């Protein structure tokens, strides 16, 4: 298609973006994106969530630059210090700088969350859409498997899995992923069931498109909206789940500075040196809240019924 790529220079031109009759596919696409962004940015809480999430990610990436100390460096003479100019958030039971450990911990914790999401969302979506679209025996097999996983208590299943392999971040991620996908599959299946009998899917079938194409290109995009929302709302529970694995000593292993593990090891000092477990606790709280706000805002923008 000719003349399509000339669209780039106009991205800052509002009239070009908001025109009623775009001249090219890319102009239409950018206009659509701009409208989504305009709706989203009008929601202050959601914007706050987005900014916090971006800030957290930026801090995790820039941890070596922002950290004041080596997160693993012990200073046993200065254990459990209160926040001061030298140690902004104090030190832990081995005299390590809590602020630096939180920064590096963000890499581990946020990394685990993103890895879990990257594994779970596509997998759950695929299982749900396939089960919903094909129905019959395929549906029965996939959904009963989902039920079996869902019937296990999450933490026990994850514990059993981690215990069977070597405790660590990778097995932690896999364990969380294994116990998190079923709700996504159910969600995607429920959406697919209502979508697959619509006339617009019948119309796509009449083009002669293969089942794979129908599921992938026409059904999945419609399930995606509610899935994204569900994912961001789940982010916080994944952080907390990773923390509880860390807390039980089965996720990230010390001295790796994971937020949950930090609380776990500091819990002994909860009464006298309360600031030591409080700092990672606050970090988890802020991250969870930010993801929740972001999810709420995304739902408002992506739900076509609201527009």
């Amino acid at each position, binding site marked *: 298609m000719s003349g399509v790529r000339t669209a780039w220079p106009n991205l800052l031109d509002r009239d070009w973006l908001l025109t009623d009759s*775009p001249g090219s596919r890319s102009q*239409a696409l950018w206009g659509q994106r701009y409208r989504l962004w305009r709706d989203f940015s009008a929601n202050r809480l959601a914007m706050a969530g987005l900014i916090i999430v971006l800030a957290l990610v930026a801090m995790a990436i820039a941890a070596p630059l922002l950290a004041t100390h080596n997160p693993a460096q012990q200073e046993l003479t200065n254990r459990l210090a209160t926040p001061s100019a030298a140690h902004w958030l104090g030190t832990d039971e081995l005299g390590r700088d809590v602020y630096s450990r939180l920064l590096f911990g963000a890499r581990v914790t946020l990394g685990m969350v993103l890895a879990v999401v990257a594994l779970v969302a596509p997998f759950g979506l695929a299982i749900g859409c396939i089960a919903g679209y094909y129905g019959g025996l395929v549906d029965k097999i996939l959904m009963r498997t989902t039920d079996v996983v869902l019937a296990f208590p999450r933490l026990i299943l994850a514990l059993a899995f981690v215990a069977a392999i070597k405790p660590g971040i990778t097995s932690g991620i896999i364990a969380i992923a294994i116990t998190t996908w079923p709700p996504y599959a159910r969600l995607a299946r429920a959406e697919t069931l209502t979508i697959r009998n619509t006339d617009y899917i019948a*119309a796509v079938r009449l*083009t002669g498109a293969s089942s794979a194409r129908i599921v992938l290109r026409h059904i999945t995009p419609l399930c995606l909206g509610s899935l994204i929302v569900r994912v961001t709302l789940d982010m916080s529970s994944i952080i907390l789940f990773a923390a509880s694995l860390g807390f039980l000593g089965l996720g990230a292993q010390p001295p790796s500075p994971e937020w949950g593990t930090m609380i776990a090891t500091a819990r002994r000092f909860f009464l006298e040196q309360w600031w030591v477990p409080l700092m990672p606790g606050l970090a988890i709280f802020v991250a969870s809240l930010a993801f929740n706000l972001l999810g709420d805002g995304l739902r408002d923008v992506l739900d076509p019924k609201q527009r």
Partner: protein
Amino acid sequence: MISVQDLVVRFGPVEAVRGVTFAVGEGQSFGIVGESGSGKSTVLRALAGLNDDWSGRMTIGGVALGPKRGRAFFRRVQMVFQDPYGSLHPRQTIDRALSEPLIVHGIGDADRRIRQALAEVALPSSVRFRFPHQLSGGQRQRVAIARALMCEPEVLLLDEPTSALDVSVQAEVLNLLADLQDRRKLTYVMVSHNLAVIAHLCPQLGVMQGGEMVEMLSASDLRAGRVSHPHTADLRRLSTELEEA
């Protein structure tokens, strides 16, 4: 062009269509009238390959149809649905809806074809990148017709194509369908509950009741009142009663 013999369609234990037989010549229009639940739409969906559980014999252009249709079938046969609000994907632009058949069949030159298709159904090119919810009912039905014509089919199956539209828009769409048939020598099978609409477009029609085709007659016989089955007479009376008011 189309022949249907002893078509039986089942929904589980229920026979929704019980032994329907009709034939349509090339470039002709055949109408099926009936009330809701008469099985008229089911016949159409079975022809289109949207319903697998049927028995009997159906051929299109001399080729016998099986339960599963190949890609070649969908190049020859297309369908327009009743509800233009439901037959377009809510998250896809008109451009995308019209490119889909081209991509599936590997037909190139999408830009020109889409522009031509919009022009053919008398839609302004400004609707191309809009979403279905930004169009009126009549515009959407034009898009649905344009989409059905993208791969230049020979047969168009029309399932109540105007019953969700306002009467003034219905007239425009019926005129459009007539023009397209002239221009492209299309073969139509149209289903409707509205006797006058069917008689307007289809010189031959069948009346369905309870899954059976109780009478086949020509539109001129219908207009003149030369009907033999009481159900046809009932439908005709209901339709003319209001006209004469």
